[in-house]
Structure formats: structure tokens, C-alpha cells
């Protein structure tokens, strides 16, 4: 019932103080009424029940696990019984009074419901208690119902405020937890930077001196270094440059293609692009880089440059591989090879952009993709 409610200790402390004060008031008022009561012994018992049950109820309310439905039910039931028994116990000498036999203590059961179940239940219980009080004292004069009406309104208001308080406490806790997570990540990034990354960088530098095997070691270290850096960066940034559901940072997205053989150059800061367009551009770049791996030769390197030129995005991809005759590429495109026709040219056409291909034997291949930032139809 109260499982998902955030426990705020101060709420119980405040409630206990008010309820104990109400008990004190019952004892004082009823002690004064004792000599003139119709049944002093029963009134004494009422006072004792109030004291004993209050202690028991507070023991239950103190801990979330003990706030069982029966506790709330008993609290409310007992309150109603005591209120109803009031006129008989006090007798005709007190017929004119509107102060119930348990005085303001009658509010405590409804207040408990409003604090730990919900303000709706609390308000309903308050309405019920107030109605029973009015009936028991046969109070037909609407102008003297101010106490009851005030009590009902107060119960609802307190419940509403406590709900708001709990929500802000929960939000504060979330914020604190997130801040702690960010700090921990920064600490980890520092540790990794100080140790692992430095050693990897050192291996990259020194290992080539040991010949071919050393060069392989250096290449492996470089790969790991780039992967690790990307991991550390990614934990700071949304994955793949995603900014929200409809926008992506194309710079961060293209950064993911970076490797020992692929260098990515972008403007500083974010290049915010419609998410679908960014994904299409990224796919086209992927396709070009796949071609570099397959056809440019084993030692080829590639460079990707992203620019924002007015309202156009320009992506240049150059490799220093074997290159080829332009005709051969066009031929390949015609025959649907190299993924050129569909994956690159098709995508660019759909985006309303253009693709320029430059190549010559021994001079690598260069693509220049120009994509309007907005959809033009």
C-alpha cells in the first residue's frame, strides 16, 4: 500500500507530536468534565482507551512495514465508536456542547490515512468522522459546523502538501544520485587517463622499435586506445550523438567511425541535424568506408571531413588507396556493384543532395556529399 511512497521521517515526527498534544487535550478536557458526567467510570475508560490506543497506533505508524490496513481501519473504527458513545457517556449535562468526548483527537485517524495512504482516502475518512460527530451530537445548526468543515479541508490540504513534498524529495534524490554517477564516471575517466591510456600511448610510441611484431603491438595498442577513449566519451554523451528523439549530433555520430585508419574531422561543438537525415548520411559514409576497406588496398587510410556550409552539410571522404578509372566506377555503379548506386547515390537522391566522385589510378578515391539540411520537396 505504502510501498512506493518515499519515507520522510519528519512527517511521522510531526504527526506524533500533534497526536500526543491532542491526547493531552482530551485528558484535560475530560478530567474537567468528569464530575458532571453521566457515567464517570465510562468516561475514565474512554480516556484510557485514547491514551493506550494512541501509544499503540504511534508504534505502528512509526515504521512503514507496520502501517498495515488493519491499523488504519482500527484507528478509524475506534474513533467513530468513541465519538458515537460520547453523548451517552457525558449525559444531559453536556448536551449543549459541540466538543466531542475525544475533542480534537477525532481528527488523528483521518490524518494518518491522508499522510500514509492517500489524501483522497484521508479526506473521505475525515468526511465520515465529521458526519458521525454531527449525528452523534445531534448538531443540526449548520452555522456551528465550522470545526468539522475546517477539519475536513485541513485533512485534504495536508495530504496534498505531503504528496507534493514526497515528490520533490524523490526528485531531489534522483538529482543527487545522477550527480554522484557523473562524479564517479569522471573519477573513472581520470583513473583510466592517468594509467591505462598513458601506457597504451607509450606502447604505441615505443613498440615499433622492436620490428614487425612491435608494429603489430603498437597497432593493437592504438586500436584499444581509440576504443577506450570513445567509451569514456560516450558515457558523457548520448549514444551515437542522439540529442533527443528527433535530433542527432552528426559530428558525434560520424566520430564513431574513427579508427587507426580512419580520421574524422568535424567542426567544434555539435552539428545538430534531423535524426532521420543524420542516420541516412551516416549510412552513406559507412558504405563509402566499407568500399575503402574492400577496394582501396591494405595500407589505405581514409579521412572524413564534416562541414556546415550555409544550410548545406558537406561530407568529404578521401582515401589514399589505389584509386581507379572513373569509368570503372560508373560502370560498377551501373551494374549495382560497390553499393554505389543504391547505398550512396540512392540515399543522396532521397535526401535531395548530390554526390561527386573523384578518382584516378594511384590517387585514391574522393567523395564529396552535399546534403541540404532541410528536407526540400
Amino acid at each position, binding site marked *: 500500500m505504502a510501498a512506493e511512497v518515499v519515507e520522510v521521517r519528519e512527517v511521522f515526527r510531526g504527526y506524533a507530536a500533534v497526536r500526543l498534544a491532542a491526547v493531552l487535550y482530551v485528558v484535560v478536557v475530560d478530567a474537567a468534565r468528569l464530575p458532571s458526567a453521566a457515567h464517570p467510570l465510562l468516561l475514565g475508560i474512554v480516556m484510557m482507551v485514547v491514551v493506550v490506543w494512541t501509544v499503540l497506533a504511534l508504534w505502528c505508524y512509526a515504521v512503514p512495514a507496520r502501517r498495515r490496513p488493519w491499523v488504519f481501519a482500527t484507528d478509524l473504527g475506534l474513533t467513530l465508536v468513541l465519538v458515537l458513545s460520547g453523548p451517552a457517556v457525558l449525559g444531559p449535562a453536556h448536551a449543549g456542547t459541540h466538543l466531542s468526548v475525544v475533542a480534537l483527537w477525532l481528527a488523528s485517524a483521518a490524518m494518518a490515512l491522508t499522510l500514509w495512504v492517500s489524501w483522497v482516502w484521508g479526506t473521505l475518512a475525515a468526511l465520515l468522522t465529521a458526519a458521525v460527530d454531527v449525528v452523534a451530537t445531534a448538531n443540526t445548526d449548520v452555522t456551528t459546523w465550522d470545526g468539522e468543515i475546517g477539519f475536513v479541508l485541513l485533512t485534504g490540504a495536508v495530504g496534498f502538501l505531503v504528496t507534493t513534498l514526497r515528490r520533490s524529495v524523490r526528485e531531489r534524490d534522483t538529482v543527487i544520485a545522477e550527480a554522484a554517477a557523473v562524479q564517479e564516471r569522471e573519477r573513472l575517466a581520470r583513473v583510466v587517463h592517468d594509467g591505462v591510456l598513458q601506457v597504451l600511448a607509450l606502447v604505441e610510441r615505443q613498440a615499433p622499435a622492436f620490428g614487425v611484431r612491435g608494429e603489430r603491438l603498437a597497432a593493437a595498442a*592504438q586500436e584499444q586506445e581509440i576504443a577506450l577513449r570513445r567509451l569514456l566519451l560516450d558515457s558523457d554523451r548520448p549514444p551515437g550523438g542522439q540529442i533527443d528523439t528527433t535530433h542527432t549530433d552528426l559530428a558525434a555520430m560520424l566520430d564513431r567511425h574513427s579508427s587507426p585508419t580512419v580520421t574524422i574531422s568535424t567542426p567544434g561543438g555539435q552539428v545538430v541535424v534531423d535524426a532521420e537525415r543524420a542516420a541516412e548520411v551516416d549510412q552513406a559514409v559507412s558504405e563509402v568506408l566499407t568500399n575503402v576497406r574492400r577496394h582501396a588496398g591494405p595500407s589505405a587510410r581514409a579521412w572524413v571531413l564534416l562541414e556546415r556550409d550555409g544550410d548545406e552539410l558537406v561530407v568529404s571522404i578521401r582515401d589514399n588507396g589505389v584509386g581507379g578509372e572513373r569509368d570503372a566506377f560508373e560502370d560498377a555503379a551501373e551494374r549495382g556493384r560497390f553499393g554505389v548506386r543504391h547505398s550512396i547515390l540512392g540515399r543522396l537522391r532521397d535526401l535531395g543532395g548530390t554526390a561527386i566522385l573523384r578518382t584516378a589510378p594511384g590517387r585514391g578515391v574522393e567523395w564529396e556529399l552535399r546534403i541540404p539540411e532541410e528536407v526540400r520537396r
Partner: protein
Amino acid sequence: MTRVMLVDDHPMWLEALGSDLEEAGFEVVATAANGAEVLRRARATRPDVVVMDLQIPGPDGASCTEELLRVLPETRVLVISASGEREDVLRAVKAGARGYLVKSASPEELLDGVRRTAEGDAVFTPGLAGLVLGEFRRMVSRAEEHDDQGPALTAREVEVLRLVAKGMAYREIADTLYVSHRTVQNHVQNVLRKLQLHNRVELALYAIERGISARD
């Protein structure tokens, strides 16, 4: 002999780079492992070249570069950093750093970078060229918004910068554009100078604006 100061928070790295440089005939006059040491030791030793890692315990490398070049403007700073610290690289270069290399560059590239920095050349990686291109585009579009004359690159400078960003060496660029190697170097240096000049103008304007509003 060129006097070099190395700034990095990792002793193994300092030692490796230091011995490589000394073997190549440089004099390593100082090392610093954090931002606080940089300025003190640079003042005491007056190095010609400072090789600056951007990721050092505070103040960070970019701030150190700004402060160092304010106090010792003759110093030539070569920034070394990991990929993915784009904002910091840009900040250091705007403050007056002469070049930038990634940390995973080979020992030969690093030595060559230090040598060229000492000679007053601008050392550009493709990544830095991309950043600088983007920065000029940003400045120009902002100037257009305010209807004033922004710091613009010439068509040739943009062309050279784009080729650098696409991974071409200066020699290849010279061949492609039918100009001399020296001309390519000059273009790159001019670009850097414009960026740094504009940065100083912006800082001065900012200071004036602040000064005026403070008197109001």
C-alpha cells in the same frame, strides 16, 4: 640548441618523449606535471618550445596555454592531446598555440612537430583543420547576423585548409594546387594568425564592453 619544456602528468611519457628529443639534439630544460608548475617553471627557464598536454591536473592545458602566452608571448606552444577534446584544442589554438598533434602520433611525427614548431611553422592535423574551418564558418555566419565584416578566409586558404582536413600532406597539397611547399605553409600560418588575431580582438571588445557597463 632549441630549448624545450614538456608538460604532461605522466612520468613515463615525459621520460620517453624527453629522451627521444635529447637524442634528436633538443635540450629539455624543464618538465611540468600540472598546471600550477607550468607557469613557474616556464618563467624560470624561458623555453623556446613548450609541448603541452591538454589533460593535466588544474589549471588545464588550454588555460595554461592562455596564461603562458600572455606572460611569455614569444614562446611557441605545440599542443598534444587525445582525440575528442575538440573544444579544448580550439581554445588552446585560439590562445596562440602554434600547432596540434594527437598523442598517438609516431615518435618521428612528434619530433618533426617539435622541430617545425621551433622554426615557427604551424603544425596542423586533419582534425585541427576541420575545427578551424568550422570555427571560421561559425564566426562568419555570426558576423552576417550582426551585419558586420567578420574575419573571412580567402578562397585559397579555405581550399588549403580543406585539403589538410582531408589528410593531405603539405607536399601533396602543393602538387595538387601547383604552388610551392612554402606557399602552402604560409597559407596555413595565415589562417592561424587570423584566428588568433580575431580572438584577441574579441577579448578586447569583451573587456571594453565590460569596462563600460561597469561604469554605468
